[in-house]
């Protein structure tokens, strides 16, 4: 079975600030990491490979520095990494991203299963997985909290909040996994070292045969018109003072007054 896992590099912080002069995001000095839920997708892929054999390829679109994320994926146990990196890919919204990722899936070819993490911590759209499935014209299973493959079908529980749906989709299919589906294995430094020898390929837009009107900024119908910090709401916060013990007493008083003790 051939599994492609789509992995994104995201900033390793919630603490993004606006540059007061330019209104742009200040990204300098911000470390990056593998999007946490993508590690769940990798783990799911590795477990399926352990059971059914085959290979796991990791696909990332991003800047050249995204190789760090790929090394981690290979260190976890993926077999091969593909980085889609080219200036014209920049500024892509989820439509352009899904087109580019689908072109890569087609070029790799022969896939049975595409795996995605539920959402990326920096964009939060959760749109990429279903959109890539639509680009390729294959079925999808989103919100998957379990995954098994049997007789050419992928079978999952879908966690829909109040209900759980058991569904199956015929391969090739895309599955978007929830964070709780598994506990991702750790890529030890020694395994990351050993994984240096695994094949890594970088593809440009030309390599993928992309229609330049469908990638990056030209291929993105949506754009950000304005970025702003949320209005501060004017609640009169009562700040507790003194030592931690004194604050604890004041909090306990509050709980008593609210009849919560």
């Amino acid at each position: 079975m051939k599994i492609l896992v789509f992995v994104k590099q995201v900033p390793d912080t919630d603490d993004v600030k606006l540059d007061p002069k330019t209104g742009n995001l200040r990204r300098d000095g911000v470390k990056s990491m593998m999007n946490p839920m993508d590690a769940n997708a990798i783990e799911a892929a590795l477990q399926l490979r352990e059971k059914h054999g085959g290979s796991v390829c990791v696909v990332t679109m991003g800047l050249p520095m995204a190789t760090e994320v790929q090394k981690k994926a290979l260190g976890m146990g993926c077999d091969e990494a593909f980085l889609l990196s080219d200036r014209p890919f920049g500024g892509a919204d989820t439509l352009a991203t899904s087109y580019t990722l689908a072109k890569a899936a087609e070029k790799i070819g022969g896939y049975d299963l595409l795996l995605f993490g539920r959402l990326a911590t920096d964009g939060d759209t959760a749109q990429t997985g279903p959109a890539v499935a639509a680009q390729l014209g294959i079925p999808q299973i989103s919100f998957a909290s379990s995954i098994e493959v049997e007789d050419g079908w992928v079978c999952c529980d879908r966690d829909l909040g109040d209900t759980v749906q058991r569904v199956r989709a015929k391969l090739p299919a895309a599955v978007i996994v929830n964070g709780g589906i598994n506990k991702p294995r750790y890529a030890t430094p020694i395994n990351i070292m050993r994984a240096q020898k695994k094949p890594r390929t970088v593809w440009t837009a030309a390599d993928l045969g992309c229609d330049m009107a469908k990638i990056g900024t030209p291929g993105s119908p949506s754009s950000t018109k304005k970025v702003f910090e949320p209005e501060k709401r004017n609640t009169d916060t009562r700040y507790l003072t003194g030592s931690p013990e004194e604050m604890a007493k004041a909090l306990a008083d509050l709980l008593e007054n609210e009849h919560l003790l």
Partner: protein
Amino acid sequence: MKSDYKGIWVFAEQENGRLHPTVLELLAKSKELQKHNGEKITAVLLGADVSALADTLFAYGADAVLLCENEVLRSYSARPYQQALTQLAEKYKPSIILYGATPLGRDLAPRLMVALDTGLTADAIDLGFDEDGVFYQTTPGYGGKILAHIVILERRPQMATVHPQICAPIEPIPGASGELIKETLCVEPDCAYEVLETRAAEKTGESLTEAKVVVAGGRGVKTEEELAMLRELAGLLGGQLASSRPLVDNGMLPHDRQIGQSGATVSPELMLNVAISGSVQYQLGMQKAKCIVAINQSEDAPIYDIAHVGAVTDYKKLLPALIEEIKARKK
């Protein structure tokens, strides 16, 4: 030509003949948008034996209901629904399509984005027209300390999934009626997708949404020992342990403990936030709490914008003292 596209569409998500509550909220939001652009509001209703829902849609603000009944559409699956909506959108050319940011909406809408080759904004928390008359969707971005106006300038329809509960439905107008348009479509069943079973979800803890007291931990909670303090405090107060996203991302707590835009919405009597900075997404999930207490070492943390009571200190010192104090008073 984008001027050929007119009208506001609301995808009338239904399951087993029951409308999703978010549909009524989207209709109310569309009424606000209509004040600006004067365009017709159409609810698009797909399913089988669902025509009775049209009256509800009229009562809650739809000018028209586009009804497409087909056995293939009786229960939802992505590809037949994609086919049906694509055909309808290509024929009627609406300028705006809104979907609830529900599990179904978030499964379906990205496929329409691809099929219609247009933009789709995810999980918008507000919609409107800006000073240039451009339709925008507000989304929190980059960890939620920043809001963005997303616009879809050239392509049509302009689409968004919209976060549940961002506005209240209008007072229903009894006996309201409107234009009922029935469409017969050719939709193929999906032979490569099958729902085998639907069952009620098992919960790992008591429901967060019902809790009177919620103790939630954030990024500053690093170890199981630290989390145990929060758990003990929640237990002492008869409350529930919850978290913002980092503790779910790193696997310390399951997703059903997460508060915020992509988690649960809670409204307890007491919401105790421990080492939580308070992103916009997080605040969406807990801002209706009656009493909000924040413990965070950084006095700039946005959580203090909505906290009623703040303790700018190290929770690792404050919580043990608070636990002792509560134990002493309970004796």
